[in-house]
């Protein structure tokens, strides 16, 4: 009887330990999922009008940051203060940022007409910055000895390129102001 009771006790302890393990495993799973969601949910579509406008503003701020970075890189390369590979890497990284910004805008579902208009303006502005950065990469390639003679969209000088970037950034700033950004 005592042996039986002992076994029952042992089973109880085993069950308790098993439950504890299950609870711990569940907790670990929840923490991991939450962390993953937090990490990957940075560019989520937002449905409420205020949130949707904020998402447009976030994407435009990213695009503005990328455009300003490109402007500094082009200026530094023009002055001979950075090497071609460094300038190219900077611009390539900014194209990825612009890709994310564009993706955030294209996947956004606008809840009303006003937000839809802001998104449309924002997409145009991000597209302009992307075009300017793509042109900047071509210019860097030419400066580094690349043969792009006759290719479309290659600026003839850094001045032309900086004007193109400035125009695109002005459009981004205007769209950002419209979306309630700083």
């Amino acid at each position, binding site marked *: 009887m005592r042996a039986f009771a002992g076994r029952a006790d042992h089973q109880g302890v085993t069950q308790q330990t098993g439950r504890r393990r299950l609870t711990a495993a569940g907790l670990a799973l929840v923490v991991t999922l*939450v962390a993953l969601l937090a990490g990957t949910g940075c560019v989520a579509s937002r449905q409420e009008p205020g949130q949707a406008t904020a998402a447009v503003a976030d994407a435009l701020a*990213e695009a503005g940051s990328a455009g300003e*970075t490109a402007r*500094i890189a082009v200026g530094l390369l023009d002055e*001979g203060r*950075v*090497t071609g590979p*460094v300038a190219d*890497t900077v611009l390539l*990284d900014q194209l990825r940022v612009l890709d994310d910004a564009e993706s955030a805008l294209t996947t956004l579902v606008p809840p009303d007409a006003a937000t839809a208009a802001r998104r449309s303006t924002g997409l145009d502005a991000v597209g302009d910055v992307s075009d300017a950065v793509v042109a900047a990469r071509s210019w860097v390639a030419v400066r580094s000895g690349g043969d792009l003679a006759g290719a479309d969209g290659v600026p003839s000088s850094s001045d032309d390129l900086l004007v193109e970037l400035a125009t695109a950034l002005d459009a981004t700033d205007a769209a950002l102001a419209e979306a309630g950004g700083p």
Partner: protein
Amino acid sequence: MKKLLAAALGILTAIGGFVDIGDLVTNAVVGSRFGMSLAWVVVLGVVGIVLFASMSGRVAAVSGRATFEIIRERLGPRAAGANLLASFAINLLTLTAEVGGIALALHLASSVEPRLWIPVAALAVWLVLWRVKFQVMENVAGLMGLLLVGFAIALFQLGPDWGELLRQAVPPSPPGTEHPASYWYYAVALFGAAMTPYEVFFFSSGAVEERWTAKDLGTNRLNVLLGFPLGGLLSLAIAACAAVVLLPAGIEVSSLSQIVLPVAQAGGVLLLAVVVLGIVAATFGAALETALSSGYTLAQYLGWSWGKFRRPARAARFHLTMIVALLLAAGILMTSVDPVAVTEMSVVFSAVALPLTYVPILVVANDPGYMGEHVNGRVVNALGTVYLVIVVVAAVAAIPLMIATGAGS
């Protein structure tokens, strides 16, 4: 004279070895978004790492054993096992970030796709771990990492408004354009970056590798008290460069290539080359340290033969652990995951794991059975207790802040 030179070398190595990819990225991100308003966290983190690194160095010098060996013996296999699990996971994440950092720095110098550099970087790290003596490896990486002083030179050449930088730093408060939750999220990340657990495991195991004894306690104190704070100044210089050039332009740092723009602006191609070389050295040195820490923690917990002072054949499982960790890190990076995102994750999760690393060290450093007359004094214990509270608060707050801010976005 020889002793003086050795001490100077130790200090220089500690300065050069302080900054890793986590410090580089987090300080630049923070500088570009919050100016110098989070400088106090760097100071807090440096004091913390000085406190606990000197404690773990003292434990190793006095007992002749690394921290993790004693943790298992003192706290038992279960508590030490939980510690091992968390430390190993964070270490692997940090190693992944460091190998990614090497690849990004080489990408910056060459414009060759980082994914092509990842296997090269991992192989180079393994070769050094396999072939190069511990002291040579530590000193070369640390001294080359000193090239990051280029950030401090750049800051002076930029000629910033020092008063404005000071105003941003004191009194510390989030800028009006940023949400307070994001400010605190980055405060935790910066704290995690400064107090990354691998630094302590590496420091204590390194003391055993170099056969420190109680006679070396002075050297330990000097390295830590001078080397780490001067390394902290490099971190502040990185943040300040970003605050001076990138913040006014509305640039948010999202890549390593942006971090060097202020350097190029200040010092041109030459200074840029120095800093890029410094970044390669700093990330390479940190990759060596984190890979070694993977081997140290597992081998010390399981009682395997470990250490670079032994030939690889005599510490086969220790070396195998490092190889597996490096393969895992390279494998993770080859999935095209963004190394900067991995770095940001690694510093935040480091903050989560901080209590598991630092509580046992405090316990062991107070045990006369191991430490004899070298147990912690009252002041060190008081400071250690204050830091434990901070570490626990940071660990508890890290994940909720990450969720609330969308990882600081």
